[in-house]
């Protein structure tokens, strides 16, 4: 019986990791397509990101002469850390095998270490663009990470756990009207936009040297290294969408030990949720203009403030 459960959990875990890996370029393609359609352009086909990845993987990887060993291994570290972080988030089922070994704070730590290595790689070759990108990324991270921690505290105070499966189950059971959760959602959306280098913070479609952050760091990469980094950033976008969906709209998640058809329904609902999230992101990015880099601290400061205020308000209502 226990073996059966173990096999079940294992297969769910593997299928969810594969789903995230295979599905993430499609989300990137969807966002690009919707954005292009909103601007009345045709836009690249939905499967274009897959073709890009395959093309990059076939190409020769050119490495700068001044690059150290760190430059070569960073793409693998970043990809691995991001993928493991994505594996910890319940996408269509809560009975994940890995989720008992790690919680939300581990996810933040994994993403943080991925960013740390990427920033190092940006500075490794010694070009000025990489340095600019790394320093800007560090500036964004110093504000985004505390904000994310405050959001986690807010969610943990409401749900009584930092374990995402437990959080999702408690949210499903209903926690009443909580202004703190609304603040946490708002702050999480701001942080997700900043972390994924999306529109008001960074423009993912441009290589304009004055404004780019993420693209500046990966400017020196080519071939399979670049393919891995692109895939990692696609997974990161999907990860944040899944995180928001899992905590704030957990309906449709298959509970642990549910039969197969419930899991299939859960997967369909999940794909629907992510599709809606991608469309909303595209609409938001079309409506808004990019900020000046020095306005970004104000934008992220709002997220930090919302997270902190959410925690404070919860303390008041709990101590009554």
């Amino acid at each position: 019986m226990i073996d059966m459960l173990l096999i079940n959990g294992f297969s769910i875990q593997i299928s969810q990791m594969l789903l995230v890996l295979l599905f993430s370029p499609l989300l990137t393609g969807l966002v690009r397509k919707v954005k292009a359609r909103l601007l009345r352009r045709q836009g690249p086909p939905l499967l274009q990101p897959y073709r890009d990845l395959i093309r990059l993987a076939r190409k020769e990887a050119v490495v700068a002469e001044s690059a150290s060993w760190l430059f070569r291994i960073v793409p693998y570290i970043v990809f691995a850390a991001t993928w493991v972080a994505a594996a910890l988030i319940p996408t269509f089922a809560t009975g994940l095998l890995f989720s008992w070994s790690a919680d939300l704070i581990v996810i933040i730590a994994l993403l943080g270490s991925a960013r740390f290595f990427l920033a190092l790689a940006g500075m490794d070759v010694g070009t000025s663009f990489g340095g600019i990108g790394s320093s800007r990324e560090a500036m964004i991270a110093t504000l985004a990470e505390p904000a994310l921690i405050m959001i986690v505290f807010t969610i943990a105070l409401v749900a009584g756990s930092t374990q995402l499966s437990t959080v999702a189950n408690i949210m499903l059971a209903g926690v009443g009207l909580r202004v703190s959760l609304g603040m946490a959602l708002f702050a999480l959306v701001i942080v997700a936009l900043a972390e994924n280098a999306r529109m008001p913070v960074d423009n993912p479609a441009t290589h304009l040297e004055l404004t780019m952050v993420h693209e500046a760091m990966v400017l020196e990469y080519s071939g399979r290294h670049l393919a891995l980094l692109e895939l990692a950033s696609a997974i990161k976008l999907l990860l944040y969408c899944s995180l928001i969906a899992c905590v704030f709209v957990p309906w449709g998640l298959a509970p642990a030990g549910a039969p197969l058809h419930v899991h299939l329904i859960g997967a369909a609902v999940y794909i629907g949720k992510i599709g809606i999230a991608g469309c909303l992101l595209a609409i938001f990015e079309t409506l808004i203009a990019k900020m000046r880099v020095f306005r970004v601290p104000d934008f992220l400061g709002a997220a930090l403030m919302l997270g902190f205020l959410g925690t404070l308000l919860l303390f008041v209502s709990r101590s009554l």
Partner: protein
Amino acid sequence: MDKLAFDVAHFLAGSLVLVSLMLLYQDRLSALLNVFAFQAVVLALSVAWQAYVQDAPHLYLTAAIALSVKAIIIPVALHRMIRRLGIHREVETAVNIGPTMLGGLGLVALSMVVILRVTAEADMYAREDLAFALSVVLLGLLMMVTRRNAVSQVVGFMSLENGLILAATGAKGMPFVVEISVAFSVLVAFIVIGVFLFRIRERFDSVDLQAMDDFRGERR
């Protein structure tokens, strides 16, 4: 039902604190006035909910006064005023948003710690409203301290008064006469301040209060 009633009261009062912090965040005058009007709407909703929960019909009147005077009349008048002063597109440059927000959050934390300690025996609604009201009052004061433009200071003063109304409605049995007189004194203060704004502008060609300090020979 009781749980839901409390949750809604918490939601509205918490939103009021949030809007007060949003006031600190704005550096454009017309945006500031819009947020101020929104704060008054949230206040009116919060007071109306208290009226429903406490079964006190006179509080509906307080909510109506807050809605009509503070959400409509004063913001519209202030909008016209900054238009006549020609400063409706002005950006406040002296504010440093980051430290101000941190200070504001510190004040919110402080008021919650103080009120929750002090009012250990009071009614649940009163405690919560008092904690939030004190933070709104302190945030209004912070706004008056950090801004240099006279119109922003007026907005800070009005938002401080919004905090007082929240405190008054949370405490059961506040006489209606008190609330009416507070509301009207604010209206009178608003008119007096409005007159003064134009006098200041006549003298100094600006509503930046730095000019007055310089005139008095004060050094910063």
